[in-house]
């Protein structure tokens, strides 16, 4: 089964912030309410990044790097998550997300 999550429509039109206290579009809520449940069910996920005004690194790091800190297996993330980013310049966010995940893996394994 494949689920598509269009961030600006299914989650929040202005994704920003890291923690729940930072507002409704925060990375923690996106990770815990959208990503983790789908990954636990083994669903293939297409994350559609298009349409947002932009993505701060703090949001991306918490939402995706935070998956590693939540003990989601890196192999599972690579296997199940795909990204759609066709807005001009948005492909860059996909590379950034994978870099955040890789960095979180390094930090987690060093701890």
């Amino acid at each position, binding site marked *: 089964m494949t689920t598509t999550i269009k961030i600006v429509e299914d989650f929040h039109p*202005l994704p*920003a*912030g*890291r*923690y729940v*206290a*930072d*507002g409704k579009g*925060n990375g923690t809520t996106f990770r815990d309410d959208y990503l983790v449940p789908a990954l636990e069910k083994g669903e293939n996920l297409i994350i559609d990044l298009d349409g*947002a*005004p*932009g*993505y*701060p*690194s*703090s*949001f991306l*790091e918490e939402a995706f790097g935070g998956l590693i800190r939540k003990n989601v297996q890196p192999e599972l993330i690579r296997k199940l998550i795909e990204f759609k980013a066709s*807005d*001009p*310049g*948005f*492909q*860059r966010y996909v*590379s*950034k997300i994978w*870099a955040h995940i890789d960095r979180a893996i390094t930090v987690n394994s060093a701890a």
Partner: protein
Amino acid sequence: MGFIGTVFASSIGFILARLVTGWFDAKFSKASYLETERNSDVERAGRLIDDITEAASNYWTTDITAILPTLQYQIPADIAELGGITANLFVDSTNCLSAVQTDLDRFDDAITAGEFGSATRSQDFSKIQAIRTCGSTLKTQIRRQRRNLPPKWFDRR
């Protein structure tokens, strides 16, 4: 060759010459226009980097209670616009785009990583130097990679 033949051959030659010069004129005008567009994109990107640097400096040097709440949305939006400008500018060269995007990511991280957007963040003056340095490096990189782009005169499209 008789008179009529000479006139006919001259006419054909004239028409062919007009077609060839017309084709060159059109190609030259289009290439000139595209080169000018590229230069104005570089200038636009430079101005946007200055605006983002100033907004980000204000963001990080002002207490959370005094900052405009919209700034935390405006800055990532401006960075995304900058990403769009550079992606279009360097669409013909993966190497140029990659070099620029590395510095754009550093600029982005210098501003929006860590506690950016946090409701409890405090002022962080130490970020200002990194933001300015990354902004300046990005501007230089965009200009350098612009010079590395193959001229549109030789573009086959």
